[in-house]
C-alpha cells in the first residue's frame, strides 16, 4: 500500500483483492508521502502481517480478529517491561496499539522514564525516546516498520540501553489472553472505515475493505 497526500486529506491508495480487509494503526500513518504503510490483512479467516500468516476462527468477526492481533503486540510489549514499575514507563503513540498498552499499564508517568514503549516506529520518535530514557534503561519496539534509519551510538550504545523487539501472535502462533476489559474497549474504539482511500482525521485505527 502507498500513502499519498492531498491538501486536506491523507489518502491511502490501496490495491486489495476483493474480500480482503486491511487494518492500519493510526500510528503507522506517519510515513512520508509515497512511502509504504504497514497493514494487517484479513482474508478468508486468515490474518497476515509482516509476512506472517495465521488462521483465525471463521466465526470471529474480522475486526475482533484484528484487534486481538494488536492486543497481542500490546501484551508482549507490556511483558517486556514487566519488571519495571508502571509509572516508570512511557508509551509513545496515539494509535490503537498504544491505547491497548496504556490500558494495561494504567496511569503513568515519571520523567525520565526507565522504559519507553514505542508503537510509532518513527525514527525521530525512537531517537528521541532513546535520548529520554534513563541510562541502562529499556526501549521496547512495538511499532510496525520494515526498516528505519537509526544511530545506535549516542544512546543505545553509550548509555547501555536495552532495545527489545516485540512481535505479534502471527509470528508467535500464540493467542493472547483476552482481558475482561477488552470487549468494552473494542466497542469504544472500533476501527474507522476508510472510504475511497481518504483517511479521516480522527480514529486510532482504520479499516479498508477491498
Amino acid at each position, binding site marked *: 500500500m502507498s500513502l499519498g497526500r492531498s491538501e486536506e486529506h491523507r489518502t491511502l491508495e490501496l490495491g486489495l483483492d476483493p474480500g480482503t480487509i486491511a487494518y492500519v494503526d493510526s500510528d503507522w500513518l506517519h510515513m512520508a508521502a509515497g512511502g509504504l504503510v504497514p497493514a494487517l490483512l484479513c482474508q478468508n479467516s486468515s490474518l497476515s502481517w509482516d509476512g506472517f500468516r495465521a488462521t483465525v476462527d471463521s466465526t470471529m468477526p474480522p475486526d475482533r480478529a484484528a484487534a486481538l492481533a494488536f492486543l497481542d503486540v500490546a501484551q508482549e510489549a507490556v511483558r517486556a517491561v514487566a519488571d519495571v514499575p508502571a509509572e516508570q514507563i512511557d508509551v509513545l503513540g496515539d494509535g490503537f496499539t498504544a491505547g491497548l498498552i496504556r490500558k494495561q499499564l494504567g496511569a503513568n508517568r515519571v520523567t525520565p522514564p526507565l522504559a519507553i514503549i514505542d508503537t510509532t516506529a518513527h525514527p525521530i520518535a525512537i531517537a528521541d525516546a532513546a535520548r529520554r530514557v534513563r541510562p*541502562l534503561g529499556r526501549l521496547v519496539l512495538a511499532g510496525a516498520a520494515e*526498516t528505519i534509519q537509526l544511530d545506535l551510538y549516542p544512546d543505545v*550504545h553509550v548509555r547501555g540501553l*536495552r532495545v527489545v523487539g516485540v512481535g505479534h501472535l502471527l509470528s508467535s502462533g500464540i493467542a493472547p489472553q483476552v482481558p475482561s476489559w477488552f470487549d468494552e474497549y473494542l466497542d469504544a474504539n472500533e476501527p474507522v472505515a476508510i472510504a475511497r482511500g481518504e483517511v479521516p482525521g480522527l480514529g486510532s485505527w482504520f479499516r479498508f475493505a477491498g
Partner: protein
Amino acid sequence: MATGLKGILNDQASVQLGRLGYSDARVRAAKREGWWWFESRARALRRGKGLLRASAIVWTEPGRAECLPIEVPRAGRGEVSVEISTSVISAGTERAQYLRLPNALIGYPHRPGYSASGVVVDVGVGVGGVSVGDEVAVVGAAHASLVTVPSRAIFPVPFGASLHEAAIVQLGVICGQGVRRAEIGPGVEVCVVGAGMIGLLAQRLALAGGSGAATIIARSRSKETFARSGDTQRFLTIEDDLEEIGGLSSPIVIEATGDPDVLPLVVAAAGVGARIVLLGSPRGATRHFPMSQIRAKRLELVGAHVETLRYEELVGLDTNRDEATRFLGLLAEHRVSVEDLMGPRIDPREADVFYRRLVRDRGLLSAHFDWTALPAKQRGGTANFLRPPALRAQGVEIGRPVRLRRNVDENPFAGAAGMLRIGLVGCGDIAVHNARGIAVAPNARLLACYDPAAELAEDLARAHGADASPTLEHLLDRSDVDAVFIAVPHHLHEPLAVEAALAGKHVIVEKPLAHTLKSAIDLAAVVERAGVTLSVCFPHRYESSVQHARSLVAQGALGEFSGTLVNFFSEKPPSYWLGGFSGRAMSSWRGTREQSGGGVLIMNLSHLLDVIRYVTGAEVEQCAASMRVADGAADVEDTISLSLRYANGAVGTLMASSALRGHRGGKTELHMWGSDGYIVVEPELRVFTSRVAEDTVRTTQWQSFGRSTGVDIRATYVSRLASALERGDPPDVSVADALAVQAIIEAAYQSGDAGETVRPAELLAGVTT
C-alpha cells in the same frame, strides 16, 4: 569564539603571537607548550609535589602524531605514578579518531591511549596496597612513558600474568562488560560478529566464562588464525557464508565491528529470542535498522559501551574494578591468552609512521608502544620546575628548525693511504681548484702541469712546486706520474683521456665525463681496455651536508623515497659563455653545444644529479625537459625545466636558470622526501623525519645542521681516490656513476629538443661504441 576566561586568554594569545610574526602552526605549538607548562606546574603545586619528565604521544593536528616531551606531577593524595613499559593501541578506536570518523571526533592537541602497564615509581598519600616497584596495569592511561593516575585506575598484575599482556587490561574491561551483558549461560553457543581485537577477545572471554561453541563472523579470512588460536569452533565470512550465517539461529550474538550497516547481518545470525550485545562502537547511523526482524524474532539489543560502567557506578557498583580484576585473574590462570593479540611493537618515536600505517593496513589487529625503546633521558626523570616555557616553537616549520650539532665524522682524510702522483692536463679556471685540492690531500701530490697555453701551466706548477710540461706527450711519458687529471673543454675529454689511458695513466676527468653520451661511452670503453682506473670529479658528494643526508637516508629517515626538488638560480654574465669563466683562460667553448654539450644543465646541474643518485640511490627512469636560451649570448640553454621519474615511481623536478636577474650570488636548493621524511640538502641541511634515524635527530620536528662546514671537497675527492687506488678498491665515483649522470643529461637534452619523454637507460643501451 571565545567562551569563558580560558577562551579569552586563548584568543588573546593567538593575537599577540600573531603580532610577533608567528605562523598558525607556531601559534598552536607555543600555546600548547605554554598551557601545558602552566597546567603541569599548577597541578604539582596543588599536590605540593615536584614534576616528572616524560614523553607522550600527542596528535598535534589532524594527521600528525608526535612523541613529545611532557611534564607530569608526582603522585599526590590518592594517586600513583607509573613508569609505563607498554601501552596498547586500540586499532579500531584510534583509527576512527585519526580519520575523524563519525562518533569519533576529537579536538587537538589530542592524547590518544587507554590502556597500559608498568612499574610504580611513586605512591601518594592515602594509597594502600601499592608500593614503589609494583607491577601494575593501568586503565584509561594515555600513551606516555610515565603517568600519574588516581589509584583506582591501577590494578596489581597478579602472579602468573605477564606485565606485557596486562597492558591490555582496558580492552579486557571493555570486552568483559560486554560478555557480562550477554548473560551467557553455561554451554550456550555464542556468535561474535567481527574479528578485530574486540571481537577476538570477547570470544575468548566468553569461552573462559563457560560459554559453549563459538562462531566468529568476519569480512575475510585474514584473521582466522587468531580466531582459531582462541578456540573458535567456526569461522565464517560475510562474503562466502551468508547462507550459513542466516541459519545460525544463535542465542547470543556479540556485535564487535562497529559497522552500523552490519546490523541486518547480526540480526540474521540471531535466533528467536536472542540477545544481541552491541560491543563495537557504531560509526554513524544504521541505514536499515531491521525493525520488523527484531520484532519478529523478539530480539533484545544491549548497548555495551564501556561508558556504561560509569552508570553502574552511579548505583554503587564498581564494575570497572570487577572487570579488570577478573580479566587479570584469567591471564594469571592462563585461561585467556592475549599475547598474539598485542600486535607489532612500535617505537613511540615512530608514532607518526605507525598511525599512517594504521590507516592503510586494515588487517592490522592491534599494536603496542614499547616505551622501553626510548633513551633513558626521554623516558623519564625529574623535571626542572623552574625552567621557563619554550614558547619559540622551534622545529614546527621548515623555516624555524631546531639547531643540532652534526655527529658525522668530519675528518675527510681519516684513513688516507698511498701517495697518488698526479699530472694536470688543462690549467684553466677549474684546474686552479683541482691543483689546490691535490695540494691539500695528504696522500696526493701534483707533479706536472700541461696546458697549450704554457703560461697557465707554468703558473700552476710554480704555485704548487710542480713541473710545467712542454707537451702532453712529455707529461704522459713521465713514469712518476700515476694519474692524469683532465680539466679541459668538454669535447676534448675523450681524446685526451684516451691518450692518457693508453699511456697507462689512471684518468681523472673533471665533470662531466664528456660532452655527449656517445663520447663518454667510447671514452669509458677505451679506458677499460687499457686496464686503468677512470673516475669523474663529482666532489659535491663530500659536502658535509651531503654526507650527513646520505647517512640519514641510509638509516631510513625518508622512508620510501618519493620525490626531489632542485632549484638552481644564478645570473651568469654573457662573458661566462663567450669569454671565459674567471678571465684566467679566454675561451668560448662553453657557449657552443658542439663543444660543451649544453648549458646550465651540464655545466652546473650535473653535480646535483650526482648528489641525488649518491644520497638516494635512485635511478632516473624518464626525463621530460623544456629549455630555452633566454639571453641569446650563446647557443646553449641558460634555462631548463626538467621533470624526472625515478625507477621506484618517485618523481622529481629541476628548475635551473643562469639568466635570472638579481641572482649574481647564485642560489641552490636541493630537497628530497619520502613517505616518512623530508631532507633539505641545500642550502643547508634540514631534516624532518618520522623515523628514528639517529639518536641526535628527534622525530617529527624540523632540525638543522647548518650549512656545510669548510671541508675541501676536491681534496677529499682526490684523497679518497688515492686511497682506493692504493688499496685496489673501486673509486667512489665509478664509471657507471659518471655514465648514469651523462645519460640523464643526454635524455634531458633529447627531450627538450624533441618535446617528448626520453629514458636514459634506453639511451645507454642504444649507444654502441
